[in-house]
């Protein structure tokens, strides 16, 4: 199947530590309006809509049903939802466009981490019989991974601190970021991870419009063509994984064609500095690649939207002519268990 599909528009909210005064729908509406406005499309023009979110963050069952009010699903729309990061919603929409059933798709994702303790909430993702009862929190698990990396000689604490400061310096050019500029590296949260090694906790939403073939060229001056997209999952038990590597990320990248030609830019979904180290190695990104020019997840990490934002940021750089071939990555699960890689390209200039 050779249907060409591109990201033609991207919008995101500011990522904020708390959005107490806003419902999910209120958070989402402006970004939905923004991407539609960028393309001149109306809800009724969209062929397929797909979203990603989590009931556990919202603290209620069927939380995505209300978000549909933000879309304005009347007359009824062709629509689906994944209980995953929005990057996987984009993947579902991509397959829908590939079938030829639709020419355009609206993809959105949102997450409010502020109402609860997200470190504790994420423990509910773990094996419910053997691991979840111990409540090992997400920072503790990432710290195990970071220590394994240090023990294996792949990195050290100063190098991790440098990842943090580079990310937040880059975020100065990203008005949506939650943390930017000179941010103190802080004390240990869980050794060897300092406060600065961890993504900030925040609320946010993002939306993307996909279009196929000529429709993409009509809607966007320089579409970000999805040359390949793939995702893979690893075993769940941390004990059977080599935490210093991300074989599922590498396999997804290979299947997405990332290794066929070098990329100039990579947007990696690495909520911890140590995970950037793992991903750079797995995805074979050398120093010639501009990694996370947006600041990445270390600058803003609205859970369930942060992966989609990586694809959006990479696409936006292609739209603006700042990149010709970019890799975008999203992750889910403890210590990079599940990974998605998309390869985006702009038409030659």
């Amino acid at each position, binding site marked *: 199947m050779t249907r060409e599909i591109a990201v033609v528009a991207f919008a995101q909210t500011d990522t904020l530590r708390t959005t107490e005064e806003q419902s999910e729908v209120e958070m989402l509406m402006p970004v939905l309006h923004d991407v539609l406005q960028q393309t001149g499309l109306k809800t009724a023009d969209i062929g397929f809509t797909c979203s990603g979110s989590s009931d556990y963050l919202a603290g209620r069952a069927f939380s995505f049903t209300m978000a549909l009010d933000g879309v304005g699903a009347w007359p009824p729309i062709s629509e689906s939802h994944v*209980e*995953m990061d929005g990057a996987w919603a984009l993947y579902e929409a991509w397959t829908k466009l590939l079938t030829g059933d639709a020419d355009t798709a609206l993809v959105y994702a949102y997450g409010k981490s502020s109402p609860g303790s997200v470190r504790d909430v994420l423990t509910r993702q773990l094996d419910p019989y053997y691991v979840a009862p111990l409540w090992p929190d997400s920072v503790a698990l990432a710290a195990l991974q970071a220590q394994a990396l240090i023990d294996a000689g792949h990195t050290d604490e100063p190098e991790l601190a440098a990842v943090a400061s580079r990310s937040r310096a880059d975020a100065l050019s990203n008005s949506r970021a939650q943390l930017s500029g000179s941010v103190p590296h802080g004390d240990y949260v869980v050794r060897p991870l300092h406060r600065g090694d961890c993504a900030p906790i925040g609320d946010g939403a993002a939306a993307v419009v996909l279009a196929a073939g000529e429709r993409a060229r009509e809607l966007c001056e320089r579409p970000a063509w999805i040359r390949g997209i793939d995702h893979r999952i690893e075993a769940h038990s941390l004990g059977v994984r080599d935490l210093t590597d991300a074989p599922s990320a590498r396999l997804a990248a290979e299947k997405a064609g990332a290794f066929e030609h070098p990329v100039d830019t990579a947007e990696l979904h690495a909520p911890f500095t140590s995970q950037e180290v793992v991903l750079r190695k797995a995805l074979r990104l050398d120093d010639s690649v501009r990694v996370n020019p947006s600041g990445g997840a270390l600058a803003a990490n609205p859970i369930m939207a942060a992966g989609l934002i990586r694809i959006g940021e990479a696409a936006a750089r292609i739209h603006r002519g700042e990149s010709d071939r970019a890799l975008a990555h999203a992750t889910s699960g403890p210590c990079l268990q599940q990974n998605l890689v998309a390869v985006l390209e702009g038409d030659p200039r």
Partner: protein
Amino acid sequence: MSKEPVAVVGIGQTKHVAARRDVSIAGLVREAAGRALEDAELTWADIDAVVIGKAPDFFEGVMMPELYLADALGAVGKPMLRVHTAGSVGGSTALVAANLVAARVHGTVLTLAFEKQSESNAMWGLSLPIPFQQPLLAGAGGFFAPHVRAYMRRTGAPDTVGALVAYKDRRNALKNPYAHLHEHDITLEKVQASPMLWDPIRYSETCPSSDGACAMVLTDRRGAARSPRPPAWMHGGAMRSEPTLFAGKDFVSPQAGKDCAADVYRQAGITDPRREIDAVEMYVPFSWYEPMWLENLGFAEEGEGWKLTESGVTELDGDLPVNMSGGVLSTNPIGASGMIRFAEAALQVRGQAGEHQVDGARRALGHAYGGGSQFFSMWLVSAEPPTT
């Protein structure tokens, strides 16, 4: 550029029961998946990707359980997608998996849906108070009963129709070894005498709460050619959604349901569903939804659905059998219920439905809905491959 035809070559279910205390969640899903692979005579290695669905994570208390289930479903090193579209999710999950084949992204996909409701209490799980929203009032029954009332008032249907549906479905379930409720001593009088839960819905007109899983192996033309048993071919599939609440919403016959059915019929070339479709597995969690959906899906004119039920048209030996398996009224692992409808429709056209087989069924519709009558997913399967 045409789509790759999609075939169902493997179907597996667990024996649905109130509580599967003998297995973990992983054990439950693996049982259904193993049976689907066995039916297709394939191994885990033949599967390119896994698409899993279930209703709210709160029902088991595990956030995004697919992460933990990756090993049990042989998904390590493979793509794994998790769908959640409320009650319609079992159907939507199958459609997302089918699209992977139709788009030629993958050749053979395992799709599975489950719910292990004994891990919590679904009714109260659905009744959390949400600020500024209409409460669900003690679960789905409290939400749907007024819409049943509206249907009765609108159509003048006699109040005996609901019990007829329940009596039929519970008898059909006796012929389905996987059904949860096997009420060997069921009588119409017993249904009619059961306690009133949410007027006009009585206890026996309500779905049970089940633990169960359902899995299917979907494949392309090449895979179907190797299938040891006759495949079911997908001729149409669609999803439609509308908001939960809005001025002018028709809860009795939602527009999204009508549009979804129309899309499926268009894809399958169906112009007269009542004559051209041989059997229907529709999502009827409360008895009265059978006549309501008969109208919504175009099998009866508006206001006439209850007459089909009353005159026995929807009985197993009727001229349009509905819920041959016993339906949601006899088995309801919520997240799996939609996929069970899709799978049972496929079993019929494969001629593998055993005692609840409809003789000569060539075309069958699988239907699921969810949320506040707002999410719909359907597919039409046939014994013949599509011609395009």
